[in-house]
């Protein structure tokens, strides 16, 4: 972390960048907030630890409109979002100085707290153990029990875009880390259920939705200036949880609108106050895209055409869905 601060100070001092976008210490040790630092002395509150889950890519849409270059710290998976935004002309690559930071996983604070670890000051990951520095001394817990869902199926340690790397090696192995599981496991499990049970599963999950729109607002792919759900002519109750239909509609359409552009950064499920596994909707689209149109990772590059703005003459017919039956 000290290395990051030192480098940021250097870049601020020599005028390469006008501001730094990073994470600021919170009150608790587990609640760092995304923040801008404009002066060297502000950086005393800078923090980077496994609780810094926030993907800063989306903030760069706003930062791109500011005077001067912004220095940003991006974790490997955050760089995919940045690339995707570059491709959509939403961020300005030339006005961004990216330092790729190493990442060994980000944490779900709730899980650490509910494991009875209190008075958290700092945390570090060592192998498959999470070491937490607390007011009451050092505490440990198995890493897998504390990780955010997205990190359990980590898509790799490689930064797809950066100006320099700190705490990470260039050319570090692509592909998921050694702990990573199959990200489609739960999707496959759902697909194997009878439709009735699947419906019940989604009904139970989606009826929890409180329409806070956090999933949408945090999503780097949801970068519309005015969301279709915010139109006041449109008959959609974007803030009322009226009954299950509106919630279903919102989540299907939201997932659909980011299909082919979603990098699977997992921010939507990280922020959901009701713990709805929203990644399962996005991953279904990713899985289908991979099956029908070939493997595709959004944000891996800035040139390729997204699956939904592309086609081939030989594409499968929509009828495939009922032919193959049972949700696969």
């Amino acid at each position: 972390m000290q290395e990051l601060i030192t480098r940021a100070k250097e870049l601020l001092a020599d005028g390469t960048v006008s501001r730094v976008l990073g994470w600021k210490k919170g009150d608790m040790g587990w609640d760092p907030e995304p923040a801008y630092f404009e002066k060297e002395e502000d950086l005393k509150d800078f923090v980077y630890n496994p609780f810094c889950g926030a993907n800063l890519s989306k903030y760069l849409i706003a930062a791109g409109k500011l005077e001067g270059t912004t220095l940003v710290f991006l974790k490997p998976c955050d760089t995919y979002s940045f690339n995707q935004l570059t491709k959509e002309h939403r961020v300005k690559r030339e006005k961004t100085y990216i330092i790729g930071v190493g990442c060994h996983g980000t944490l779900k604070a709730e899980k650490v707290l509910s494991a009875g670890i209190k008075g958290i000051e700092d945390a570090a990951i060592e192998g498959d153990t999470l070491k937490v520095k607390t007011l009451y001394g050092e505490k440990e817990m198995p890493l897998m029990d504390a990780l955010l869902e997205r990190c359990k199926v980590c898509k790799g340690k490689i930064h797809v875009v950066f100006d320099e790397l700190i705490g990470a090696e260039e050319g570090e192995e692509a592909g998921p880390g050694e702990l990573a599981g199959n990200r489609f496991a739960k999707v496959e499990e759902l697909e194997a259920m009878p439709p009735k049970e699947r419906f019940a599963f989604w009904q139970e999950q989606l009826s929890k939705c409180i329409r806070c729109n956090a999933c949408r607002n945090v999503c780097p792919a949801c970068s519309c200036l005015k969301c279709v759900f915010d139109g006041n002519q449109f008959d959609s109750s974007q803030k009322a949880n009226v009954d299950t239909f509106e919630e279903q509609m919102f989540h299907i359409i939201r997932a659909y609108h980011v299909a082919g552009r979603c990098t699977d950064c997992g921010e939507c499920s990280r922020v959901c106050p009701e713990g709805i596994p929203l990644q399962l909707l996005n991953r279904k689209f990713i899985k289908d895209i991979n099956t029908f149109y070939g493997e595709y990772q959004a944000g891996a590059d800035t040139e390729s055409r997204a699956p939904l703005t592309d086609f081939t003459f030989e594409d499968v017919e929509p009828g495939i869905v009922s032919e193959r039956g049972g949700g696969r």
Partner: protein
Amino acid sequence: MQVENTEFRPKIVAFCCNWCSYAGADLAGSSRLAYPADVKIIRVPCSCRVNPMFILRAFQRGADGVILCGCHPGDCHYTTGNYYTRRRMTLLFSMLDYLGVENGRTRVEWVSAAEGVKFSTTMNEFVAKIHELGENVRLEDLRCKN
């Protein structure tokens, strides 16, 4: 004496593209080919105009089945519109299936202006399928139900 009609009359929305399928429906009509009156046609400039939201809205408003008809791939009036439709609908239908909506409530069929017969058989088949599936309850909005 009024006889109460309790028989299930499905509500079916058919989005037809202006250039092929709508003309196909016309041909079915002028050739006196029958298809059930339960099918309500909405004419769209191109099958590609159909936003996935249209389909969900139709279900919300009480449709029991939604069918989308367009030109055969390669024949699109706008050259490539229906290729995009094909991808979009494949993904949408797969998602609906994943959410537990019965398979078969949605369908895409390519119907050219010369295929009056195909239009009529497709609609007959589709209506039969919806009869088999019954009323749409999983995507309904209670506020729209009588």
